């Protein structure tokens, strides 16, 4: 059955609100309305203490940009995410490939891997802090471990998912193990690995921030924790806003990367 009036050449004309432009304007209107309501309510209906206000948040952001602290904290977090991500992906792919090609070994240690995976990563944070101190190393470690597991599992799943019939047909053609690995298995597993890499970006960000929340002296997570402790709601929301922006930028970057329009950052 067709969706009613889909692709209809005749039929009723679309009301303005449902056109692309109309929808966009409506969205902007909603956001503006929420911000205005927030500004109005703050101080009058709800104490500024709890929810702050858009103007206060903006002021805090301006101050941070002015005194350079924004960049310092941002740099700390982004470095932690970036370094941890790279290490985690590298290790995850390497060990994933290794285990993928050694199915028996993989089967044996699979339950151990899942067991370690089920520990909430945040619980490892104190361990890393004890081992590496309060600096960026412990955050990098936390991010790396988080990303490692996700990429590892994706890669292993990708390799296991290869249709054995395809392998067999290559074997019959006379391909060596190495050739089968490079021409069939790795290319087939690539999309799985990429999916794992893509998913783990979000988790990497969360891990870095959480690590900073637990114990740090700089970073966006630190800003959240510090400002909470200072009962500075505006500061907390400002930090969250930065977090959201970072997330949006990263998601955009990833989407573009996938579509191929951004310069290749990864060596694949």
């Amino acid at each position, binding site marked *: *059955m*067709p969706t*009613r*009036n889909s*692709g*209809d*050449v*005749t*039929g009723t004309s679309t009301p303005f609100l449902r056109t692309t432009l109309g929808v966009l304007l409506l969205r902007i209107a909603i956001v503006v309305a929420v911000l205005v309501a927030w500004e109005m309510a703050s101080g009058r209906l709800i104490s500024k203490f709890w929810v702050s206000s858009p103007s206060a948040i903006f002021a805090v952001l301006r101050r941070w940009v002015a005194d350079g602290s924004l960049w310092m904290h941002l740099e700390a977090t982004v470095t932690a995410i970036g370094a941890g991500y790279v290490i985690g992906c590298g290790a995850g792919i390497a060990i994933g490939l290794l285990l993928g090609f050694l199915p028996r070994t993989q089967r044996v240690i699979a339950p151990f891997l899942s067991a370690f995976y089920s520990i909430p990563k945040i619980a490892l944070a104190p361990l890393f802090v004890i081992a590496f101190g309060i600096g960026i190393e412990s955050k990098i470690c936390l991010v790396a471990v988080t990303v490692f597991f996700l990429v590892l599992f994706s890669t292993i799943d990708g390799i296991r998912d290869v249709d054995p019939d395809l392998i067999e047909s290559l074997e019959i053609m006379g391909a060596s193990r190495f050739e089968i690995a490079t021409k069939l298995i790795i290319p087939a597993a690539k999309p799985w690995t990429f999916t794992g890499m893509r998913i783990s970006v979000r988790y990497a960000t969360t891990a870095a921030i959480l690590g900073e929340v637990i114990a740090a002296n700089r970073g966006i997570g630190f800003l959240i924790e510090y400002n909470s402790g200072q009962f500075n709601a505006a500061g907390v929301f400002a930090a969250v806003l930065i977090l959201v922006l970072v997330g949006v930028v990263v998601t955009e970057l990833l989407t573009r990367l996938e579509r191929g329009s951004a310069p290749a950052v990864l060596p694949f």
Partner: protein
Amino acid sequence: MRTDSALQRPPSATNASAPARIELRGAAKRFAAHGAEIQALSAIDLSVQPHEFVALVGPSGCGKSTVLNLVAGLLNPSEGAVLYSGKPVAGLNRSVGYMTQKDTVLPWRTAESNVGIALELKCRRVTAQARKDRVARMIDLVGLNGFEKHFPAELSGGMRKRVALARTLIYEPETLLMDEPFGALDAQLKLLMQDQLQTLTQMARMTVLFVTHDLAEAIALADRVVVFSPRPGRIRTVRTVDLPRPRDIFNVRFSTAFARLHEELWNELKDGIALGTNV
């Protein structure tokens, strides 16, 4: 609103001045797809009398399904008019039961729960007990005894089709729209289902609009067969099927009258395809 009834209705007095159940006057349908305009249906005129069984036959893409969608109110005509019981079709036409090619059985309900769903709706006012009885009767009619409590994922394609058929017939819609309902079934099952369909629709005196590829099926079941030409869909021929009712579905194809009609219509179909442009 139908109250619980046996599947029998007294014959209505059909006279020439009573409105046709379904009427298409110069109805055409165009779609915009991928930047181009596709003419699914050229202006056609078709009228279906109450209690009539009309089969629409033709090659793929000739607009047969579009006709059904127009009658059901799922589409508006780009040109012309589509009338139901004398009034233009506006919005979804709730007097029809529509059995589509695609499987629309609800996967999370058992077979019997699926069959009874139409009777759960408020617009019908059927008591739970009455519903159970009618469902049981329907299940029996389509031969799914023993499978009532199975989920669709556990049933074969043919069985799912039977569930869909039972589900559509159970509330005795005034008109039945069927889009190649038996296409995916094996030959034996197809004949069985055709037989059941004939029995049920004759008993309840439903008007039926039946789309199919299978010319033999069309002739066996219908009062009239409408042959379409390839896209853009146009009606090539309309022939009345004079075979007496009730018809023995299993053996009717061996009669000479059938064979003659089949040959005639087959030639129409063939010529239509030969002359036609893209399918």
